[in-house]
């Protein structure tokens, strides 16, 4: 039943797409028909030529995402807990954050080469900020009474961080992790656009250069699938891990009662 509405929406879009191509006689180097896209997907994934590209982008995204997330968690916790570090580091962070990270891509390529390393760095760089900001906000927004309660109970600062602040920050951190999935994909694709011989970004670019829009759309659909799967996985983990915070799950929790 949960699949009913999305299925109807997708079917409608596909129908309108096909109808538009027929009515307006759109040439297939502007907009391919569904058949072409399916054909590209079929040859790509069944004959196997897309798998290395998918795997390249996936590896770059997952590795970059995890490294960015770990650094964001550690640095966020240090900054939130130690005011003097915050005073020195925060201005730097603000300065880097106000820069569109994709503008750093050419530089990252120069520094880390044409291979997967530069893509991983791009992903990590882009993923870092939404997670980092949410870690700090989450740790800071803890109820001061809970901290007082722990102090009365004889807890150390580390106990308070581990037992109160981190669990409290879990919900905002998950929100950051979820945003970072899609942003991380942007990083990987931009890296691949600029200089790469592999990856879905590379596939899309070569398809577009050859006016083979079937391949372009197949690449886009693959990226969307990765994005949706990643986001759903994080939602699932969020509801599982932060079981006590029902209101922050939104429609997901409501739908599952």
């Amino acid at each position: 039943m949960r699949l009913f509405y999305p299925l109807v929406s997708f079917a409608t879009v596909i129908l309108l797409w096909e109808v538009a191509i027929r009515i307006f006689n759109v040439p297939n180097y502007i907009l391919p028909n569904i058949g072409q896209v399916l054909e590209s997907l079929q040859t790509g994934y069944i004959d196997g030529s897309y798998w290395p590209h998918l795997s390249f982008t996936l590896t770059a995204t997952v590795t970059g995402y995890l490294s960015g997330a770990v650094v964001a968690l550690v640095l966020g916790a240090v900054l939130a807990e130690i005011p003097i570090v915050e005073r020195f580091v925060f201005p730097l962070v603000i300065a880097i954050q106000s820069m569109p990270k994709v503008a750093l891509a050419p530089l990252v390529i120069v520094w880390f080469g044409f291979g997967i390393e530069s893509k991983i760095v791009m992903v990590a760089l882009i993923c870092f900020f939404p997670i980092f900001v949410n870690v700090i906000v989450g740790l800071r927004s803890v109820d001061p009474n809970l901290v007082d309660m722990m102090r009365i109970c004889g807890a150390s600062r580390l106990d308070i961080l581990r037992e109160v602040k981190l669990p409290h920050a879990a919900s905002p951190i998950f929100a950051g992790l979820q945003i970072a999935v899609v942003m991380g994909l942007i990083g990987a694709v931009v890296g691949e656009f600029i200089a790469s011989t592999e990856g879905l970004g590379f596939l899309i670019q070569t398809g577009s250069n050859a006016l083979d829009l079937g391949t372009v759309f197949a690449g886009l659909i693959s990226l969307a699938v990765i994005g949706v799967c990643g986001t759903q996985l994080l939602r699932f983990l969020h509801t599982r891990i932060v079981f006590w915070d029902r209101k922050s799950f939104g429609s997901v929790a409501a739908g599952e009662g």
Partner: protein
Amino acid sequence: MPAVSLDRVSLTYVTASGTIPAVQNLSLDIERGSFVSILGPSGCGKSTLIKMVAGLLAPSAGAAKLNGETVTGPRKDVGMVFQQPTLLPWKSVLDNVKVPLRARGLDAKACDLRARQMLELVKLAGFEKNYPFELSGGMQQRVGIARALIHDPPVVVMDEPFAALDALTREQMSLELQRLWEHSQKTVIFVTHSIHEAAFLSDRVIVLSARPAKVVKDIRIDLPRPRNVETLADSAFTELCNELRSELYAVTGALDGKR
């Protein structure tokens, strides 16, 4: 020697927009084993005062003393109940009650029995495995009380513990609290802005002035114990309430019921 004594304590908050004197030169001795209520208008400095006793805030001048020892930080011999239940939402009721023992290094098994006994005492047996969000406000506050008492501290401070509850639950909780305290020989400092609660529970009611807090009245409540629902209808009780009310109205400047 008094169990708790405040020796000319002052506390001034320093904020970006200026300094706020919350408590000024306040002295008070509290006898061992007594139940003392602190009654005062909202914002007068009651929480501030009680946090100095609990070692959460350091006085700007003067000292809070327990058994004659100056308080320098949170101590094992003080338990605290907060206005909100202040439970960890990700821990079960049982684990919440264990927090004071766990934080002091006892392992989970060792404090299990004691935690269960405490829950029985506050009539929450059977709810060990539930999470706070599955309990009513009154039940959550009972968990908070069990947690404050689990390590058997001789002094318990309570900061408007029933303020967030409905009137009926409040009255029942007052009776429960009296039952818990009666034979415990604990010294209780109970902050409230409810005149009835103060008169019903206490041996002594301290009325504080508006901010910065000073003691304006110190009234002994000699009603016989145990007190019960009939006490509420007693004329001596009504008279005490009236007296406290006029004191409180005097400090808030709302004489004759005008505000």
